């Protein structure tokens, strides 16, 4: 798009709704989708006299997440009030964390989208806990302009993960979000449903442009309300283009214009201005006097560390080292989450063939999951069954094509692999039977024999096809081997 050297600079703020049973400071349920204002109490409504009490489960989830994204967990963290007026915010302030967040200084290693074999190090400034606000619903039915407020979401625990402005392209952003979501799913700390708002992404973006030996930066824009990974990627692509064109047109730089906020319109595929002149908001942060600072003993952090299990990045490395998978394949499998990883490992264990397992799972299994819109936990072919089937393929007892028939049969019937093969009439062909079949073919095709003897080995292909017709269970590799042996003997 340009003749200038342009660097895209993106930092993300990801709000993760933590999967606690109850809210951050009261015992109300966090269940999604209840009728408006049915999951509220004096505490989350901010009624006069009500006081917050911390939900320890949220602290533990935050610690686990922080450890998984390589953050340090300070010995002491505290609560601050962030003051602003909004109808969704009943107390007139949000309980959040200002200068002593529960997680600080982490990073994520992501695969470089421009080069599968290398990684990028994305810094994480901090992750802090805060309570969510409610929701305003603007009801403009029948010419009215009522605003109704649903406070069910008030007080739901959020972890806000703030990255360094280390991301350089929408593709990297997507990779970062994928990686982050993978970790959050692995830890079971969040549902990560962007549509339901349990994962919300705000992106700060601008361009660093090299022009006539001078480096300038375009004004920073915060892009909001993107509700899918795809939307994030497209919104950023749009925004980068827009900022460049704007700069070419008006020449405004970061020094000329304060940060603005833009929303993403998914249907029109463009960002639009939300707040033109962002006055530097003065939230009047100060320590919440209703909540004591939290001391986090080292034992609690160690305890949390023990619950992490193998993190996705480590699993990717292990699948490469232990099973000889390519980085790409290991990524595809791990990206499907813990259940599929477990499935894969069992298939490998039973079949003894990691590469075959990997390709079957990436192709046949994942395609079927998609077609059936189901999850691996509910999948009809168990890892033991698939493992047993692939073991037979590796042993040459059955070829890939026939194995697919067995796989299809197993999807429909709850039987063992042997039973499936039997039902399909697939039987192991013994070598004397194969010898007889091959001799018969050679006798009937002297020209082929002559061609092969004359050095045209590929001529044998015609006989393999015929053998398969006469006996569908004949393994093509074995047939070829036998034909060559008989010709040469």
């Amino acid at each position, binding site marked *: 798009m340009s003749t200038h050297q342009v660097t895209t600079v993106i930092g993300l703020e990801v709000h993760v709704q933590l999967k606690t049973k109850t809210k951050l400071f009261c015992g109300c349920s966090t269940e999604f989708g209840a009728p408006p204002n049915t999951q509220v109490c*004096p*505490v989350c*409504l*901010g*009624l*006069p*006299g*009500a*006081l*917050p*009490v*911390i939900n320890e489960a949220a602290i533990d989830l935050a610690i686990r997440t922080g450890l998984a994204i390589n953050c340090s967990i300070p010995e002491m963290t505290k609560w601050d*009030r962030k*003051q602003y*007026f909004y*109808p969704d915010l*009943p*107390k*007139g*302030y949000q309980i959040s964390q200002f200068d002593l967040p529960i997680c600080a200084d982490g990073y994520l290693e992501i695969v470089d989208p421009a080069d599968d074999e290398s990684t990028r190090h994305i810094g994480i400034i901090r992750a802090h806990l805060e309570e969510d606000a409610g929701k305003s619903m603007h009801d403009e039915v029948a010419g009215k302009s009522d605003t109704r*407020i649903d406070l069910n979401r008030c007080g739901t625990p959020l972890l806000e993960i703030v990255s360094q402005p280390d991301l350089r392209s929408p593709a990297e952003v997507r990779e970062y979000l994928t990686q982050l979501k993978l970790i959050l799913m692995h830890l079971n700390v969040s549902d990560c449903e962007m549509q339901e708002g349990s994962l919300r992404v705000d992106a700060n973006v601008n361009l660093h442009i090299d022009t006539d030996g001078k480096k300038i930066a375009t004004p920073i824009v915060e892009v909001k309300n993107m509700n899918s990974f795809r939307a994030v990627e497209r919104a950023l692509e749009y925004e980068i283009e827009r900022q460049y064109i704007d700069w070419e047109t008006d020449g405004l730089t970061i020094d000329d214009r304060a940060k603005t906020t833009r929303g993403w319109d998914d249907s029109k595929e463009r960002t639009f201005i939300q707040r033109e002149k962002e006055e*530097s908001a*003065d939230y*009047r*942060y*100060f320590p919440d*006097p*209703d*909540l*004591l600072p939290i001391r986090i003993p080292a034992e609690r952090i160690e305890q949390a560390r023990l619950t992490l299990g193998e993190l996705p990045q480590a699993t990717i490395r292990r699948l490469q080292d232990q099973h000889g998978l390519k980085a790409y394949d290991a990524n595809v499998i791990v990206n499907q989450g813990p259940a599929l990883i477990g499935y894969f490992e069992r298939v490998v264990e039973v079949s003894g063939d990691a590469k075959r397992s990997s390709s079957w799972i990436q192709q046949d299994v994942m395609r079927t999951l998609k077609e059936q819109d189901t999850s691996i936990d509910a999948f009809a072919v168990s890892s033991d069954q698939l493992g047993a089937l692939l073991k037979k393929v590796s042993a040459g007892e059955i070829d890939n094509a026939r194995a697919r028939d067995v796989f299809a049969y197993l999807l429909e019937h709850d039987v063992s692999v042997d039973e499936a093969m039997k039902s399909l009439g697939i039987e192991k062909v013994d070598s004397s039977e194969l010898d007889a079949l091959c001799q018969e073919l050679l006798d009937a095709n002297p020209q082929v024999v002559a061609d092969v003897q004359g050095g045209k080995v590929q001529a044998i292909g015609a006989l393999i096809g015929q053998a398969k017709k006469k006996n569908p269970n004949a393994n093509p590799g074995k047939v070829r081997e036998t034909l060559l042996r008989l010709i040469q003997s």
Partner: protein
Amino acid sequence: MLDSALELVRLQENGDLTAVEIAEKALASVRDTQDSINAFTHVAAEQAIEAARRVDAKRAAGEPLGILAGVPVAVKDVLCTNDMPTTCSSRMLKDFRPPYDATVVSKLREADAVIIGKTNMDEFAMGASTETSAFGLTRNPWDTNRTPGGSSGGAAACVAAGSVPLSLGTDTGGSIRQPAAFCGITGMKPTYGRVSRYGLVAFASSLDQVGPMAWSVPDVALLLEAIAGFEPRDSTSLNQFVPKYTDVLQSSDLRGLRIGVLSETAETAGIDPAIMDVVNEAAKVFQSQGAEIVEVNLPHSKYWVPTYYVIAPCEASSNLSRYDGAHYGHRTDSIDMHSPDGPLVSAYCRSREEGFGSEVKRRIMVGTYALSEGYTDKYYNQALKVRRLIKGDFDAAFSQVDLLLGPVTPSTAFPLGDKIDDPLQMYLCDLFTVGANLAGLPAISLPGGSDSSGLPIGIQLQAPALEESRLLFAANAFQTATDHHQKRPSH
């Protein structure tokens, strides 16, 4: 008649009086004095009689009764009650009925107390005279042209007027002790966290504390026993054993007790000499009971008031932001749909403009300013640092002495209207009391004498954290030796 809660309990046990009879007498007294004193914002006559009836029925059935069975208690209108309005004496909450009881109110009900009503106060507990109430000022039963003090002015006046033997006040910078001193009764601010703040409408969260008010120490001890204790719904509540406070009042032998008298207090300009005389006299009484009097110094005491008047408004400005007209409380009828800031901001501004009185607005402005960007370090954070120094002073003093003795107020009850237009003069009423709030310590105000016009003068004892028993023991010893707490206004 209604002077002593312990006496009322005894009379019921003896069968001399029923709870209903007592409640009726209390309600009659409230009716007789409400016009002249205006101690109540709400009188719950029906609920009180009903509660008394239940006590009588339980007694008749031989069921176990709480320690406040049948005792009329008045509750400051800053404490949530699920069957009465909770207004904080503000137009903002004029019609607010909380869906729940404050923990201290639940504890009163569990103790079988009879809640007579809600008492008047300075709006949102901001003031030292109960003149900032949106529902009219309260008058001092000793002299109805004078203030009862504040902000728990109604809570002090209803006891002094003889309507109830016990009342609950709240103390953020002296709001129990100063009105107790002005009304000639006994009032205690417990250790911060000793009594749950759940359901106490917050003014300054890190300073607020609920406490008992009564004529004499044994009644104060009884009420404290009923309301103290750990509360899981309040994160700042202390998980510490609650002694049976009434048990410590047997002896008046103070031998071995070291009482510190604050040497710099005497030099504080503007203090009424009659008050220093009373404090010195009190020191002699303690001495005569075996206590040793030691002179001590709290070097940062001159910073108490300025520190308090940064921290309290900062917290207040935040705590009061919920009153925006959106969810409950006063909402303006006149939203300006064409306001340049938009209708929403107009709704906030007008609701707050109409709902809050001028003292509340003043403190919100001060607090908002002190917390705003660029000023936090200069004011709020600085005040927090000084607060730590102030706590350090008390720690040092209590390494030498067991209790501190001093005045409660620089003057006796001042005439109504005297200081209402001079906030700085009003703020100086807290000169001797705010230290205990900043340091979170327990302190008690006791009648110690009177001035030449017969107005009560209070003395103050302060103790280390959680040493309420020590405080009550010494205070009771003083009342054993004196009769100041037995004097009554002749209204």
